[in-house]
């Protein structure tokens, strides 16, 4: 099971994507752990293009800017991280975080897929 989203479209902006995991009981602790001690520049509760809830937190550590997107898909969760060298480059790419879709597929979903 994985998270699917469009690429950032810029070579100097890096995107890393987690697997889908079971939604943590303590989501605040999960988010705090992922963000660490980085300075939080912004923190927005928004939705993906199709309507899934996502929390996007922008942080800055020395010369590195990051946008963490924390998703909840029913009882599963995932995080995507954009990394850039400047805030402008990062902000230009953050809309891709709202293209995310869950892929719950973990093997076949329908019998007909076996005869591909």
């Amino acid at each position: 099971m994985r998270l699917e989203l469009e690429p950032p479209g810029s070579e100097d902006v890096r995107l890393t994507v987690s697997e889908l995991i079971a939604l943590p009981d303590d989501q605040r602790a999960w988010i705090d752990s992922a963000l660490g001690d980085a300075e939080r520049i912004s923190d927005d509760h928004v939705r993906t293009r199709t309507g899934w809830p996502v929390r996007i937190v922008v942080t800055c550590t020395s010369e590195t800017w990051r946008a963490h997107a924390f998703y909840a898909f029913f009882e599963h969760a995932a995080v995507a991280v954009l990394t850039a060298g400047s805030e402008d480059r990062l902000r230009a790419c953050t809309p891709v975080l709202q293209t995310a879709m869950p892929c719950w597929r973990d093997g076949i979903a329908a019998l007909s897929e076996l005869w591909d």
Partner: protein
Amino acid sequence: MGRWHRGRIRTVEGVPVPGPGVVLLGWFEELRHAAYLIRPSSEDTPCSTVPGMIPAAPRGWTQRFSANLVVYEAPDGGSRIRCHQQMPLEPISKAVARVAGDARIEDTRRVVSGEGEYGALCRVGERVVAVLFADAHAIVIEGSVRHADVVLDLLIRWKLELGLRPRRALYEPPPGWRPMPNALATTWFPPGFPGDHAELVIYPTAPTTSTPHDELAQLIAVEAASLVGEIREVPLETEHGLIGTHATLAIAARGGVVVHRDLVLLRREPYRYALKLEWTGEARHREVLLAVVRSLQPLPVQPSRDGASQVHWVD
């Protein structure tokens, strides 16, 4: 009837197996040459074969066992058929890639085993590969194209012994919808979900003696207190011979939201087929449900047993 012997366990080659156990040897009129060997699981004798009925070697062929592998050697000794017993349940292209590399697959056919289980047969260069699909794993049989008939015969005679049980239904998934598998059931969501709030659930096909109308009544009774308006029910019959009912109803959910529901219950002995479309807002996906219903295939039913000799391994 035959005679039964209690004693020390030996392999089919006659080698004693450490540990407690019982050898049962029976000579029956209809199974004159069959040996039923019960092997114990112990640290001294790791047993890797799965429970099931492994077809006896065709006349003139020899049969050998290895780790999760059964090998049949042709009478001339120049060709082997390998049966891989514990392979993942995956599309045939991936199964072929595991045993034959990235060679091009030709002539893929859907086949059904003697037990009524689905399988596939295809040609890969000068080899043929047959795959027998269980619920959670697969048997992959590969051999020379010269022995395609033997490969197919082994697949047809391979016994998984899964019996009459809930199974995945065979249908064409709705194009563009995203699946969320849940064991043998799958829920499909439209591309715009959750903004486009709908879900289509394909339940496992299950053996039942109830009629679709009775099962529908049971389902509706659970939520009778939340029903909004009337239940509409129309008879339904598909071109594949499934007969049942299509009901539409509405339920009052939390927050005053009205949830609309289409329930389709179909039957063809001995199985029941069930689908549910649920949505809020406009009714936009009923045609998607009906397309899936039209594509539903009745599951094969197990024909009579062929009575062929078998070697039965039980861990």
